[in-house]
């Protein structure tokens, strides 16, 4: 493993963690709304949120390419207003990872919220707690285990993301090269042993992530 390789690993870990943290508030908010509220057309929103999970990742990547490109709706605005590029920079990677792992986070967080007895929230309100206080002192602590498991899985998904990333990242060495993109490139170049070393690292990372998420979920069941 060369210095460049470790830089790739570090970059992958950093951008995956950042994207997971970035989607956290939105994911929690959406999960809460889906768990606690009903309205006509709710299933439409649920389907829309799940799309990145079931669509081919490259298809999602293509949509992101169009939107984040310099002539796209979002990329264009940033380019014109702030002279800021999104496409082919780490920002595009972060957004791609965030979009792809968002449905996982929302799903697990929603299940966690649904398992919180609404009666507890109601009683907390009768005791004088307003909406935010109830959320932070009752709902969130009781849903914490499930949410954490969801966060870890979202992080793991981001670590392994390829299809959407390759469309928008450009695989610029030292700037947007992630672990999965690097493995792909090494295979392309015929550098198999190099690719296998990177493969080993990604397996270790994925294993650690999924194992700790399982651990959390099991502990949650035991205390019930």
């Amino acid at each position, binding site marked *: 493993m060369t210095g460049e390789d470790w830089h790739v690993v570090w970059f992958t870990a950093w951008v995956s963690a950042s994207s997971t943290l970035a989607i956290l508030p939105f994911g929690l908010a959406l999960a809460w709304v889906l768990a606690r509220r009903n309205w006509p057309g709710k299933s439409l929103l649920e389907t829309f949120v799940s799309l990145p999970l079931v669509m081919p990742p490259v298809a999602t990547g293509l949509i992101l390419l169009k939107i984040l490109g310099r002539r796209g709706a979002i990329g264009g605005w940033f380019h014109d207003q702030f002279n800021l590029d999104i496409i082919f920079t780490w920002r595009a990677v972060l957004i791609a990872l965030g979009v792809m792992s968002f449905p996982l986070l929302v799903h697990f967080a929603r299940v966690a919220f649904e398992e919180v*007895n609404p*009666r*507890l929230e*109601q*009683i*907390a*309100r*009768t*005791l*004088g*707690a*307003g909406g935010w206080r109830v959320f932070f*002192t*009752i709902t969130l*602590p*009781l849903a914490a285990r499930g949410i954490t498991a969801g966060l870890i899985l979202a992080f793991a998904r981001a670590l392994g993301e390829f299809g959407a990333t390759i469309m928008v990242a450009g695989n610029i060495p030292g700037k947007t090269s992630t672990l999965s993109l690097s493995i792909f490139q090494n295979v392309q170049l015929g550098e198999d042993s190099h690719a296998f070393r990177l493969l080993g690292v990604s397996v270790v990372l994925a294993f650690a992530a999924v194992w700790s998420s399982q651990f959390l979920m099991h502990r949650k069941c035991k205390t019930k």
Partner: protein
Amino acid sequence: MSLLLKNVSLPLAHFTLKVDFEVRSRVTAVFGPSGAGKTSLLDLVAGLRAARSAFIQLDDCVLTDTAKSISVPVHQRGIGYVPQDLALFPHLSVRRNLLYGRKSGGAGDPLFSFEHVTDVLEIQPLVSRGVTELSGGEKQRVALARALLASPRLLLLDEPLASLDSPLKEKIIPYLSRIRDEFRIPTLCVTHDRFEALALADEIVVLVDGRVVQTGPVPEVFTRPANAEVARLVAIETLQPGSVIRMSEGLATVSVNRVTLTALAPAATSHEVLVCIRGEDVILQRDAASASSVRNRLSARVLSLRPQGALVRVELDAGFPLFALVTRSACAELNLREGEPITALIKAPAIHLVPR
């Protein structure tokens, strides 16, 4: 205090809850069979549910007025709620549960101080424990204390004794009485057990299929039910205060107006009790001669006879007002007549003693 509910309409699964009543007493029981809409009513008062239409006023504060789109948010109503499943916060210790509703800043009313409330409900030793380590009765008291520590101006109790077994029920009743006497908070208490209502409440609202069928002071509703429906639910023809003289071998000797009765001993020892005897449990007999298993044989005089459908309601003077329900044919057979003497037989288990 006064709690006014007007024009309340709330569609439920099988019927619509439609109530209109006002209560002024300290403790009011909302009484009715399961599924009558009692819990929904409490939810409405607490603001946890919205009605199709409702006007709810507590003292001089309008809590809900759908006509004017007024609805005070739940956390501003100052109404304590102890639900049937208690809803203690499992992730907080008993202490943190108790202090959850505490308004920050200052001493406040010493009546509702932490020390006083935990003292009255005898939960001080439990304070540092986790909620899951408590027994049923302990959880009940903690839930009550938690609601009280938030200094509510109205207390809502949903079937406070329903999930407890009999000995435990009788243990909790004194605490509820203490709450009533010490803290003097107006209380709305939902129950489907008439003896609970008798033990706890001053006034009673009888709710059947979402409709109020009778309201009034407890003894009155119980002895004079407005119609057959209520009668079926509550009717206890004889309700008299009495004093327990002696308890031995599982039996209690009660004195009612200097007449001694033998009843089954209640689990909780209480000197003052309410003696409850259902009309159909009183047997009338011409002569008192032969031995029988009945412990209570009272010489009485017939005061009045009132037909009630297929039965006749016989008012007797047995040293205290006693009512019997007998069939018309029995009445004819025994040749019951006003002013005539008769023997009234009541089995010990038929006499219910409600601690007061």
